[in-house]
């Protein structure tokens, strides 16, 4: 029975693609490109849910205690739930699937010239475990007492015992959803890393690997070595809830801070897990749209490695005022300031790569530049939070909310949209609409800043985060109009995404057919057909050069694909 099934699949994969059954081709696919699309669509769907929660929260913050259209009054307990689910969804169910899973799946095998992941069925399994995780999370909205309301960080004791929030099933499902997600991405990570190490095309040495692949691999590494302790921590949290243990409950001798340590030991690298893939896309786009070799290839790869190493020793900067031993504040301040150095180097290399290039501001490039600008703001405001002294003032205010949205949003959406547009022709075999793409970019860019820039001011003025009703605090009355402004901007920001949805789906079905290499780029994925068939390449690619040889003086074309043999060999002359 099973044998027959596989036989049928095997044969169809070998001979023709037309007779492949729908379910094998689109549902239980082992093709890395299809799995990438599955992750992409799942992630984009979850983005809708995440945006809806943002809409409700913003409504409540601007027009407290009035009925939000499409839902009703956002009560205080529901606000807590929305904050929690918003953060969880955006980070774990949008950022992770779109940036880590979809991008790694699509880009790594194609860029290294492999026919697929080395463990294709593990790959499929990882997607379906992720689906189970999504189902768990969404189901938690509908169980008695609703979804978890303990913040996306799930701090105990709130999250460790029902008595605090009245929520049992919501918390249990939240933990289970995270557990499944971690299992899924661990399987994914094994696959990306093993594929990267084993399946590179002939000639593709480590110093010729495109930066996108390097940074995607970096993201998987960051995830891989940070998530373990949190899995252990999550098991303990689950047991606190269901078995009555007291790992995190002071009244039972437990230690709530333990969770914070485990969570942030993962949490900080996790920021890079989401950030590095965004950077990966941007790094790939910059040389292509400025027709220049990238500046400081090695420097950037090493900077990333240093940042990864440091990312494991900065976690307590999230805990300066948590009550941990204050003597820890100093070393963690120092490592935190240190970690900005490699990223500063990367940013400078990117600026140097842009300098003097013949820059073409097509949609992917717009997103890439937008990423740079917005992320820079996020990074710079991080300095205020990284040093313990000013952190004590800013901690727990909207300044933090603004800061992390200025890092997360660029990474997930600017980076994500950069990647989606850049690889769209390869993924779907059609071109997106440049016009709609640009409209969408400017709408997002402008209203993103309108939404989050004022929040720095609101936060410095003393508005604390996670409050359900600002009208209860006299000092916040001064921010009433500003909050309304922020909310309206957020609505336009969200509504502006409709342009993307139209562009995306229209282009998938109706866009003009894309050629194999529409952006005239060097890396291997552009030597495959658009979209690449099952198995990607008709013949095994061989790599002869680095990925960024643009505008060489001795060449007629301003780009030299990695798989193009050296001149002498090609022309047959000595």
């Amino acid at each position, binding site marked *: 029975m099973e*044998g027959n099934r596989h036989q049928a699949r095997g044969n169809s994969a*070998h001979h023709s693609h037309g007779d492949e059954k729908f379910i094998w081709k689109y549902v239980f696919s082992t093709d890395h490109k299809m799995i990438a699309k599955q992750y992409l669509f799942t992630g984009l769907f979850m983005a809708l849910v995440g945006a809806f929660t943002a809409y409700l929260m913003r409504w409540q913050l601007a027009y407290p205690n009035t009925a939000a259209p499409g839902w009703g009054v956002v009560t205080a307990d529901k606000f807590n739930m929305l904050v929690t689910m918003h953060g969880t969804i955006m980070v774990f169910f949008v950022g992770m699937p779109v940036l880590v899973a979809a991008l790694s799946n699509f880009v790594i095998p194609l860029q290294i010239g492999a026919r697929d992941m080395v463990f294709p069925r593990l790959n499929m399994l990882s997607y379906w475990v992720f689906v189970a995780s999504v189902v768990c999370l969404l189901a938690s909205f509908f169980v008695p007492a609703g979804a978890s309301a303990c913040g996306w960080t799930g701090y105990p004791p709130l999250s460790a015992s029902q008595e605090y929030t009245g929520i049992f099933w919501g918390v249990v499902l939240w933990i289970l959803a995270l557990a499944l997600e971690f299992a899924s991405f661990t399987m994914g990570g094994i696959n990306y890393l093993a594929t990267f190490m084993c399946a590179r095309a002939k000639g593709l040495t480590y110093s010729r690997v495109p930066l996108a692949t390097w940074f995607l691999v970096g993201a998987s590494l960051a995830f891989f070595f940070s998530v373990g302790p949190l899995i252990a921590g999550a098991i303990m949290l689950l047991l606190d809830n269901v078995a*009555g243990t007291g790992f995190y409950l002071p009244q039972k001798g437990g230690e709530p801070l333990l969770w914070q340590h485990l969570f942030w030991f993962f949490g900080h690298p996790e920021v890079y897990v989401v950030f590095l893939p965004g950077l990966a896309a941007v790094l790939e786009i910059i040389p292509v749209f400025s027709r220049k070799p990238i500046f400081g290839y090695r420097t950037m790869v090493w900077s990333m490695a240093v940042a990864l190493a440091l990312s494991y020793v900065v976690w307590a900067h999230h805990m300066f005022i948590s009550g941990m031993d204050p003597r820890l504040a100093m070393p963690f301040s120092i490592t935190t300031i240190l970690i900005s150095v490699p990223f500063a180097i990367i940013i400078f290399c990117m600026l140097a790569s842009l300098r003097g290039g013949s820059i073409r501001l097509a949609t992917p490039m717009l997103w890439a530049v937008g990423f740079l600008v917005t992320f820079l703001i996020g990074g710079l405001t991080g300095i205020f939070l990284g040093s313990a002294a000013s952190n004590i003032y800013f901690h727990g205010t909207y300044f933090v909310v603004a800061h992390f949205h200025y890092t997360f949003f660029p990474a997930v959406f600017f980076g994500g949209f950069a990647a989606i547009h850049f690889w769209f022709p390869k993924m779907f075999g059609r071109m997106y609409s440049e016009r709609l793409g640009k409209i969408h970019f400017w709408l997002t860019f402008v209203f993103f800043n309108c939404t989050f820039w004022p929040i720095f001011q609101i936060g410095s003025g003393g508005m604390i985060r996670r409050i359900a009703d600002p009208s209860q605090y006299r000092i916040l009355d001064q921010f009433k109009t500003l909050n309304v402004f922020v909310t309206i901007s957020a609505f336009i920001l969200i509504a502006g995404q409709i342009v993307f949805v139209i562009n995306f789906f229209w282009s998938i079905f109706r866009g003009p057919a894309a050629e194999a290499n529409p952006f005239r780029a060097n890396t291997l994925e552009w030597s495959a057909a658009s979209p690449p068939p099952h198995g990607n390449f008709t013949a095994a690619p061989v790599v002869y050069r680095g990925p960024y040889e643009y505008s060489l003086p001795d060449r007629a074309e301003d780009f030299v694909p990695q798989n193009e043999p050296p001149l002498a060999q090609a022309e047959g002359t000595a």
Partner: protein
Amino acid sequence: MIVQTAAVENSGEISTGKLGIWWLIGSEIMIFGGAIGSFILLRLAHPDWADNAGHLSVPIGSLNTLVLLTSSYTMVKAFENVKKRDRKKICRFLLATALMGLVFLGIKSFEYHGKFSHGIYPNTNLFWAFYFTLTGLHALHVIAGITAILILWTFGLRDRLWPPAPGTGTASPGSPGPGIDIIDISNFSDPSIRGGIIRPNVNMSIPGPRWSGGGRPIADRIELVGLYWHFVDVVWIFLFPLLYLTA
């Protein structure tokens, strides 16, 4: 055009399956590292937990350690016989390893039962919470290991560890006869024949019995499962002194 290797194995020495297992072990080390690290930190802060640890029987714990260590030895023996292609011995040693894993679990449940009958449960206090969580998590890994070993054992019993030698093929009807080049993995071949590490692989491009995973004989997996089993063993080597010997 040059049509060769490329897809997989260009970096040579290490097989993808082994690499996958090592990454898996890497992630497991982080999980146990987090759990054990948490325990150590709290244990240092609570010298009084020694009283609880005193309730654990060192002789029984030592016996269990011995059982698990011996099972690692038989696992090595099974692997040694892979090189010698001695199917009988492989099966025997795999079975011995699995049985010893079961004995370990049996002794463990005997200990659990003893605790329960004295009214000691995971929620009794933090020490016991850690005790049951750490050993329980470890036991789950033992179960996973035993399962994998038994699966390999059944492959051994059915003589599926290696592809049939030409001429003596036990392939089922419909499969290509001997002499036909079944899978040439050195070629730029169907990616679906790469090995999965979770479940025994099925060769999807040809009908017939399962003897080939990732183009490598099933027998190669004995080494992979062995690596995992040793890891499970090592975890216990950490747990035993931390829990039992700190009274």
